[in-house]
């Protein structure tokens, strides 16, 4: 195994592009190192991106958007008060991952690139309309987070491409987001179902919404029918029921050791309603 510590993303990309064996980028390592030690993946080239300038920065931009470096940890996000005010759902989704120790290492970019359908931060980023900046052999590009996962353990990133940062759009006025997951315990677990809702209010009326589900399909889903159920409503019972039905209808889960198809489908609807209520309250100014 070769361990690389490139000083810029162009070099990181070039190493990956030129490698012919198994390649892994290393940010927090909370997935890669675990997989390595349990013999699931043995990389030939391990490319540590933590030495690249700017990867640890959380940057608020002038237009109200945010740039979160690829090696920013969950703990660093949780400690950024302004980010928490703008995107509390994204921050709480990241904060749910692992233990205190894991929070000191784990990253948004890593959670996305690991490709797990159950990744907690991914539905929250999708609901938020986040994108990732990518550098590859053919230059840079920006991809919607929703388009990155293509299946369990698979992403749309091409050989040699590396995520440099996660971009969150301007929150704007009257916005709120929330993420909830179901786990059998209280922490240190993997989502059996995850649901993120991001919406904008004008008075009591929802004017825009995005709803995303995790762990109920091969990739996290953006559920447009669920958003439609919310838009134009004041989150009345009928809207919530329509939301739950749309969320359930979008589920394509599997029976496995973590949950049944029936359970996951039902709980997706329950979580959608609960997350929508929290996002709605936050959009209305609730802390």
């Amino acid at each position, binding site marked *: 195994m070769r361990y690389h510590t490139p000083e810029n993303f162009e070099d990181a990309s070039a190493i990956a592009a030129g490698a012919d064996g198994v390649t892994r980028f290393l940010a927090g390592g909370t997935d890669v190192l675990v997989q390595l030690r349990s013999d699931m993946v043995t990389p030939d080239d391990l490319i540590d991106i933590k030495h690249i300038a700017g990867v640890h920065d959380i940057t608020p931009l002038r237009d109200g958007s945010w740039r979160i470096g690829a090696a920013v940890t969950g703990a660093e996000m949780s400690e950024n008060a302004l980010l928490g005010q703008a995107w509390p759902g994204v921050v709480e989704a990241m904060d749910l991952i692992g233990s205190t120790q894991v929070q000191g290492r784990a990253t948004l970019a890593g959670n996305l690139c690991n490709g797990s359908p159950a990744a907690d931060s991914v539905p929250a980023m999708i609901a938020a309309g986040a994108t990732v900046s990518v550098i590859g052999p053919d230059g840079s590009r920006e991809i919607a987070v929703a388009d990155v996962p293509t299946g369990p353990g698979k992403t749309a990133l091409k050989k040699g491409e590396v995520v440099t940062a996660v971009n969150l759009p301007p929150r704007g006025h009257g916005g709120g987001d929330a993420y909830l997951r179901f786990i059998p315990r209280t922490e240190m677990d993997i989502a059996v179902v995850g649901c993120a809702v991001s919406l904008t209010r004008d008075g009591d009326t929802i004017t825009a919404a995005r709803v995303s589900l995790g762990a109920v399909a091969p990739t996290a889903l953006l559920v447009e029918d669920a958003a439609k159920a919310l838009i134009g409503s004041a989150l009345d019972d009928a809207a919530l029921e329509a939301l739950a039905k749309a969320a359930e209808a979008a589920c394509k889960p599997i029976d496995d050791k973590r949950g049944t198809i029936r359970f996951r489908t039902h*709980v997706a609807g329950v979580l959608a309603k609960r997350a929508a209520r929290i996002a709605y309250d936050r959009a209305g100014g609730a802390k």
Partner: protein
Amino acid sequence: MAFDETKTEGFKVVGTRPNRPDGIDKVTGRARFGADATAPGMLHGVIVRSPHAHARILKIDTSEAEAMKGVHAVVTRADFATGLTGENWNILENVMAGETALYDGHAVVAIAATSSLAARDAAKAIVVDYEVLPHVTDVDKAMAEGAPVIREGAADKSVPAGLHPNVVRYHESGHGDVETGFAEADLVIEDSFRTEATHQGYIEPHACLAQLGNDGRGEIWCCTQGHWNVQKVCAALLGIETSKLRVTASEIGGGFGGKTAVFIEPVALALSLKANRPVKIVMTRSECFRATGPTSSTSMDVKIGMKKDGTITAAKGVFRLQGGAFPGAPMEFTAMCAFAPYNLANVSQIGFDVMSNRPKQAAYRAPGSPMAAFAVESVIDELCEQLGLDRIETRLKNASKEGTKASFGPTWDRIGLVECLEAAKAHPHYTAPLKPGQGRGISCGFWFNHGGETAVQMALSEDGTVQLSVGTPDIGGSRASMAQMAAEELGIPYENVRTTIADTATLGYNEISHGSRVTYASGLATIEAARDTIRKLCKRAAAKWGIDEEAVSWVDGCAVPSGPNAGDFDPLPIARIAKSMGRTGGPIVGHYEATPEGAGVSFATHIVDAEVDPETGSTRVVRYTVVQDAGKAIHPTYVEGQYQGGAAQGIGWALNEEYIYGADGRLQNAGFLDYRIPVASDLPMIDTVIVEVPNPGHPYGVRGVGETSICPPLAAIANAVSAAAGVRLHELPMSPPRILAALEKQAAG
């Protein structure tokens, strides 16, 4: 001189809460656990395990692996003793498969190399050809007609004719006539229950360092609950004399029964013999799940008849336990514990020990008893509910007490169940208001406790401090309680006693730290060794004073004349006798060896409040109170720790822990991510009440406490969850999908 045989009051050290002597070592990292041992020239061993639930081993090709750099030895079954019988054969067959791999994770071949990485890489290069055979992992299916036979001829003579060959042992006990009893009842409820296998979940994986030379002498350093047992079993499996091996027990990171068994030590010895180098083996967590002892899974039917006033007229239980690919599922304990809390005129209990393609079950904290309580106490709860009876009053009405006949035969000595139930009834928890969505459950539980072979030695140092050597690994703070009992008896400060877990060359045979026996049996032996030491101290004083030995008493750490007639001498402190002992007859060493048989049984009553989210089936235990008879709490903090630990493990077993097998017979969740033991935030603060009804079989009245604490939780939590959800749960774990399915089934009518 005379000694009090028993002492139940006036304690000075016993009953206090000093710091544990091993505490600083453990919080500073100085303590040496199994994996901390090293030796010059040490190799690392790795075990290759079957990926199949049931498969004939056709060929093991190690040629490529043996050619790899750093590889020193490979062993298979051919490198172990032949001609073994009985349990030794079972252990060998489990430690290294013979002709057939019997479960996913069964050891097939082992390799030793100069580093753990080299050993792991070499292990991957070993090629094993298998012929996959049909498998069965479910207890009911394993007993059914047509199930694959795990091993022909494994059944013993207890099994009635006509049962499947996988039923290998059978138990039947009870008294009276249950049919007559059921006819006298106003209400009879019969129900079926199932529990999944759970793992002891100790945080330290099994680890050992072993050396066996060509001179036939060897040493083992390992984490174990019983190193004399390791010595005996390893000697048998390697075909050498017992005394050729010396075994030292390391610090132990939890055992809960799971480290009473032997898994890797014989393999490390065999590799060491072949390589002529010391070999260390450290299991991964995955190996612990796949190949070390989970408890049995069960299928149970319980039928109980009750009169309107709460009197139980008859009780019957059928308990089927799956114990993996070997005989030994503790079904007789399940059967015997099931109705032990109750004084029954008519009772019948039947147990089946069933083999399947799973790892060999190992003891887990009161083996077999918690599942029995789950089934029995659920049915009692249903009867109380339907008859409108108070749950504690009903249990009190039927409670076993001194002089009543136990469901499994003997007549009870002094026992403390009534005291536990009364304490639970009086506890504010029992009558505290519940919030919407919450339910309260209670349950009783019982465990036998055990004595066992025990040897203890107490050596006096020249400054009057004491070195106490015991042979029972400290799995629950026993070095502290031993030091307390020694200090109490000798009349010296707690800090002046150092307790050491001696190796197998130092003391006579000590049975494993199991059966909640340590504070009872090693404690009794410590007290007797102290009394032996005191006799020797008094003898030195008598010689110094020129009076009769019988005229010397021991008071507060000093020899004193027994009375005015004995003479007028100043008290002679232990330190002064010790200082001159070299000149007055040599070293002073007290000792005691016995197999004490007066281990008092222990009962408990638990009260649990649970909250169920009806939309998701998620459960939270919001309040928990343990009431248990300790006989006498030597170190109350560690008694409370045992109570809380049993409750915490019970919460995991009841709600989320389970062995999940795929259709291919492979374990799906061999890791702590998907095998869900409770995390700290899952648990409420667990309240404890120590009831003390002295055990007549111990000088201070001690009863074992480590195991009884896990007997009531499954039932108490099931009763609480059933009350909160409004639907009776019959299967553990009560995971969210299972609770939600039960709610949906009820809603559908």
